[in-house]
């Protein structure tokens, strides 16, 4: 039970404020002029030395966005966002586009060190001997460094920032960008298409099994700045990659907007495993501040027998609006969604997945664990859709909610649509409370209250934690413990 112990020790070590990533980095930034118009987009595109077609693509998205309405169907509420009161581009002045670690501003390196993110190219993450993790570090609107690039390129793998990919590999970007999440997809995705700043690009060549974990760490630092990252991962025939995304932000009274788009493409027999540990600043105990996390993530199982698996541990953000999805296009392709969503304080979570079965014998598996505490609201929203031609499609959903305390809410909103009578679609849902009897049972055996809660919660989320790469599972378990601090007694 080392992890539970660590959870508890960590909880104890934190005093008033639970969010340990809330510090701010003192660094001079270059900002785009406040507000959003076509000039803002030209500014961003110019900063990134983008090809002309990319600017046109952005402008086209912007013009569409102007005609769209902000969606209101999610079970979240927040004051109207003033899109003219935001900065759409912020980059550290010192490190516009570094080539290697030595060129990165030491202040930035210290920031990532403080966040516990390994930027040195050596065995990383405490306790995991020899595990290598390549990192793309995105600070506000720019990628500041990407590690292990040389080693990866020996395998023909491309791992770099998307800005760089646009310049160095335009043919790949042009071929895939916007093919999974179209420019017109939804309000935030369209906004992202217009103003996206940076993010990661991954291309795994045919038959290659990526020899290490790839990861991107997103950090919002600048005030009044929106972060609009864009990630594109392509796994060619028979390849495999495991990718992890992490995110944190300083503690501020204002709400900050984060509207990302992630697109995954898996060709024949390829597999992509995408894990997220989302820990944006959640706001304070009175619900002031915190990130609005409005994200569109979608994977396309384009080839036969391909597989895409989303695993997410969501503990941060004031509002989360996020539905990582799979389009199961290839015959015999598989989609998976494993989620732990923890909400405490005044957090609002509306998250889930979409599994769209198009190919024959496609299968999907959804395991969602929602934990609500404090005054938070936690909604699972999931869609399973089976196309008429998807013979032999199978889908299984298990959706469990755990309530801690009396002032929080858990909601389950499943949408099942099957146009194929032979498809097998199953859905299970439970809602439970940590019962006083369970708690007393643990405590009467000598476990202090917080440790008892951590133990029960870890039991509840166990099947999902097992899906995370081992080194991150421990981290995620700790995070869940910290997020639930003060939720009992």
């Amino acid at each position, binding site marked *: 039970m080392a992890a539970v112990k660590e959870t508890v020790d960590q909880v104890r070590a934190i005093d008033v404020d639970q969010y340990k990533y809330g510090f701010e980095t003192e660094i001079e930034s270059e900002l785009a002029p406040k507000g959003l118009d076509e000039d803002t987009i030209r500014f961003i595109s110019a900063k990134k030395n983008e090809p002309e077609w990319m600017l046109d693509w952005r402008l086209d998205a912007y013009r569409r966005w102007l005609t769209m309405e902000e969606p209101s169907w999610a079970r979240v509420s927040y004051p109207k966002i003033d899109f003219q009161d935001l900065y759409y581009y912020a980059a550290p002045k010192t490190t516009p586009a570094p080539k290697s670690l030595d060129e990165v501003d030491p202040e930035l390196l210290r920031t990532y060190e403080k966040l516990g993110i390994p930027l040195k190219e050596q065995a990383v993450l405490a306790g995991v001997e020899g595990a290598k993790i390549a990192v793309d570090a995105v600070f506000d609107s720019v990628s500041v460094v990407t590690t292990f690039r040389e080693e990866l390129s020996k395998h023909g793998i491309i791992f770099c920032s998307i800005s760089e990919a646009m310049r160095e590999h335009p043919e790949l970007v042009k071929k895939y960008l916007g093919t999974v999440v179209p420019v017109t997809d939804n309000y935030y995705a369209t906004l992202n298409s217009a103003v996206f700043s940076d993010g990661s690009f991954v291309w795994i060549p045919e038959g290659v099994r990526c020899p290490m974990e790839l990861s991107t760490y997103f950090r919002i630092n600048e005030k009044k700045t929106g972060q609009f990252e864009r990630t594109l991962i392509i796994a060619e025939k028979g390849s495999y990659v495991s990718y992890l995304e992490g995110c944190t932000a300083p503690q501020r009274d204002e709400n900050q907007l984060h509207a990302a788009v992630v697109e995954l493409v898996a060709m024949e027999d390829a597999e992509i495993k995408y894990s997220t540990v989302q820990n944006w600043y959640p706001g304070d105990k009175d619900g002031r501040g915190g990130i609005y996390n409005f994200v569109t993530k979608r994977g396309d199982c384009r080839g036969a027998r391909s597989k895409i698996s989303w695993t997410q541990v969501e503990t941060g953000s004031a509002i989360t609006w996020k539905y990582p999805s799979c389009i199961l296009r290839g015959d015999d392709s598989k989609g998976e969604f494993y989620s732990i969503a923890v909400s405490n304080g005044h957090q609002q979570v509306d998250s889930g997945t979409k599994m769209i079965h198009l190919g024959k014998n496609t299968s999907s598996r959804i395991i969602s664990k929602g934990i609500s505490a404090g005054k938070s609201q936690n909604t699972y929203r999931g869609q399973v859709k089976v196309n008429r031609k998807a013979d032999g499609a199978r889908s299984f959903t298990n959706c469990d909610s755990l309530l801690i305390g009396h002032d929080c809410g858990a909601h389950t909103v499943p949408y099942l649509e099957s146009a194929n009578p032979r498809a097998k679609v199953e859905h299970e849902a439970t809602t439970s409370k940590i019962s*006083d009897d369970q708690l*007393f*049972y643990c405590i009467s055996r000598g476990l202090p209250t917080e440790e008892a809660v951590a133990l029960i919660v870890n039991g509840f989320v166990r099947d999902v934690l097992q899906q995370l790469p081992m080194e991150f599972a421990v981290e995620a378990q700790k995070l869940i413990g910290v997020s639930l601090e003060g939720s009992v007694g």
Partner: protein
Amino acid sequence: MLEIKNLHAEIEADGREILRGLDLTVKAGEVHAIMGPNGAGKSTLSHVLAGKPGYKVTDGSATLDGVDILDMDPAMRAATGVFLAFQYPVEIPGVGNMTFLKAALNSQRKARGEGEISTPDFMRLVRTEAGKLKITQDMLKRPVNVGFSGGEKKRNEILQMAILQPKLCILDETDSGLDIDALKVVSEGVNALRSPDRAFVVITHYQRLLDHIRPDVVHVLSKGRIVKTGGPELALELEAKGYADFVDEAA
């Protein structure tokens, strides 16, 4: 070892007094049986001693080796040596039985200022004690009490007791729901734990448990007080005549 004096306790929610001036002294090495009609307050007594929320002690005291336990939080009571084998053990999904045992043992050791037990030592301890109670590897790996039969749950309670090595063991109707074979296994487990520096309070309705776990003293609890105390023969008398006589006495 255990000294209860004039204990009064009520249900917090409605203020109903359940324990009404209960006195009980249990010396180290002894086994005391507590019998009594349904609703007499037997489980309440066990809960109040273990520190379950929902009860309010309004008068009296309870000490373990001279130390007041009613002031301690329940986790501290456990570390001090109080153990309650529950009448209805709770299920904890997803938490492995071994994981739970180890977390509990280490928490208690930590509270007492001792170091953590090493994994090999712990494994050895569990293997030995589980063997005695006919608890399989599979049961050790499964989540705490989830899908266990009634008998397995009770055996699991005794396993926890054997691992945690408490000073005072309170067994609340551990015999209920057990068939004769399971009763034997559980009783042997308890008997193996009898020692000169450990005391037992065994709550039961039936003589058949006391055939296996021989008590030194038998008490009758009625309407929140001990109304009669005697030797093992008292249990036989109760079995033959029922509680009627004592209940009237108390009235």
